[in-house]
């Protein structure tokens, strides 16, 4: 067992911390207020290789590992959770399934542009009537001649409005239930494919969350990802990895809120003392710090297991469950310790609390994570 980061992982943190503080943090409040997707930040992330961290260099990746990827999302989210999820959804939910399930032609066609950040990725599973119960897919795909024809709609798609490549699940054989779902690669500009409404959300307001609409959308036969009927497996394996990304986002939000609160408590005086000198508050902060560190260890362990090709689904569920609930608790309390100021948009904790909530919902709600963990515990 080894709890030390490697030199590379430490330098990833140093690099992304510098990048985040200089390039991301100055925009965070504004893009949240304006609900503006930070295209310029995505370009900068691309330039420095932040959009292809855990993939081999032969496909244009950085040749890094999943702990480094987790650190990347964590450090971005420490200052801006919207920017963190742009990186996470792109990497975990689009690049990874193509890397893992794609054939060599598909990998060579899509990964170099995605990993270099020339193109942005997204993932479409959720539908209006198929959220946690993903098996209720109503989007259909039919093979007509040498083309797949897709019909249906997806909702809540992260990066939707700005992505170029989408990994999309659709039902190819309704009778087979989960085994009747297949995965496809859809490109922006495909005939019959359009972006629907953009959601107006409570938090991660700078992230683009949209509908995807397929109306007789025609794609070539070679866009099938994996085999016919593999879709559910593609989706579930993708979400296992995505949970490491979202757990890292939650961790970053919690750490960011904690850090600004420490700073605030060292400056703010009441009753002739700094807030940081009140033992009641010290103890609360000690508890939060401990939970943040516990979340970090769960996440890095899950990421390490993924790198070692171990079965990491339960570890990722635990990491995501704990990190998300920690983020919610930490941000709620940090708003409280800021008092009235914490409730205003003059301080970042207000945004962080709104951003934290989504981590308990997407990429599997906290309830789904408990189902995964309980499922492993009471295995039939």
């Amino acid at each position, binding site marked *: 067992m080894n709890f030390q980061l490697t030199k590379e992982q430490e*330098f*990833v943190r140093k*690099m992304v911390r510098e990048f985040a503080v200089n390039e991301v943090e100055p925009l965070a409040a504004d893009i949240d207020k304006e609900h503006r997707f930070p295209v310029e930040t995505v370009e900068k992330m691309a330039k*420095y*290789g932040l959009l292809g961290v855990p993939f081999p260099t032969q496909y244009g990746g950085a*040749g890094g590992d999943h702990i*480094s990827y987790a650190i990347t999302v964590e450090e971005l989210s420490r200052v801006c959770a919207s920017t963190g999820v742009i990186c996470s959804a792109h990497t975990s939910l689009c690049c990874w399934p193509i890397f893992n399930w794609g054939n060599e032609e598909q990998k060579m066609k899509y990964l170099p542009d995605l990993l270099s950040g020339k193109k942005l990725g997204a993932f479409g599973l959720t539908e209006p009537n198929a959220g946690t119960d993903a098996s209720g897919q109503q989007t259909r795909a039919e093979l007509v001649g040498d083309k797949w024809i897709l019909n249906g709609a997806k909702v809540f798609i992260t990066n939707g409005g700005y992505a170029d490549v989408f990994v999309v699940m659709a039902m190819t054989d309704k009778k087979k239930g989960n085994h009747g779902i297949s995965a496809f690669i859809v490109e922006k500009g495909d005939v019959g494919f359009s972006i629907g409404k953009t959601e107006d959300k409570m938090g991660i307001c700078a992230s683009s969350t949209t509908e995807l609409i397929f109306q007789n959308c025609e794609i070539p036969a070679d866009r099938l990802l994996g085999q016919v009927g593999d879709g559910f497996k593609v989706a579930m394996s993708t979400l296992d990895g995505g949970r490491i990304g979202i757990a890292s986002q939650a961790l970053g939000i919690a750490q960011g809120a904690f850090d600004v609160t420490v700073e605030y408590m060292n400056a703010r005086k009441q009753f002739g003392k700094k807030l940081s000198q009140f033992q009641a508050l010290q103890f609360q902060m000690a508890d939060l710090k401990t939970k943040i560190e516990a979340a970090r260890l769960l996440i890095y362990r899950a990421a390490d297991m993924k790198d070692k090709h171990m079965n990491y689904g339960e570890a990722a569920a635990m990491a995501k469950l704990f990190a998300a609930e920690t983020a919610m608790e930490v941000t709620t309390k940090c708003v409280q310790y800021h008092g009235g100021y914490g409730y205003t948009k003059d301080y970042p904790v207000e945004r962080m609390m709104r951003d934290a909530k989504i981590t308990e919902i997407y990429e599997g709600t906290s309830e789904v994570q408990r189902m995964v963990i309980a499922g492993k515990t009471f295995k039939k």
Partner: protein
Amino acid sequence: MAFKIIVCAKQVPDTNVIKINPATGTLIRDGVPSILNHDDNNALEEALKIKDKYEDVTVTVVSMGPPQAADMLFECIAKGADEGILVSDRAVGGSDTWATSNTLEAAIRKWEKLNGPADLIFAGRQAIDGDTAQVGPQIAEKLDLPQVTYVEEFEISDDLKEITVKRQLEDGYELIGIKTPCMLTAIKELNEPRYMSMAGIFGKKDIKVWNAADIEVDLNKVGLLASPTNVYRSFTPAPKAPGQKVAGDTENEQAKNLLVQLKGKHII
């Protein structure tokens, strides 16, 4: 033939967080993060810009320091340098600027023996821990190279032979033409240093650690005992009192208020 650039860089304590022990007058280094010296970062950036623009350019970063200074070379390579050379030996420890430039001169001569003459040597103006601004110029003298210090703008001809630099002065600048090989020291106005890249962080790292014997340096010219200068005393300068803003809606009113205050304090 490759155009070979050497960048002299130093790992320094981050002076933003450093404090001086008032009892001993020495720097408290415990728990202080070490960083790539700021001006050296600008020197490296200018070298990397040449490498970005022209083919067959190599950038070698040379440093003297304790073994952990290899981390700084790691960072330089992660930004795009080809290799790092660290001269690390107790024999060179405690060197002042004269002994340091002797060490770096020997290291560069050794490197040139192995790789051929360097075409351009960059250094930062000065290190934030010592602030002497002497090591760069001394290296240039000892290597018998023409030098320009305080470089704030840099341009090189496409044949990589003619350089035009803007040299910062207190009250203006000089525009100087200089031929390669030469040595330049950079200031922060020169450029905006890049971040490390992910591919750089995970890529191959060519970091060589050389000792005093490797660089064939005369041991009488390096280290604490050979240093003609030593630190007499360090102190934290007393912070200046904050300035005072003179109120007034118009310039006339402000001038009047200033006059009242100065008279009130019997200054005039």
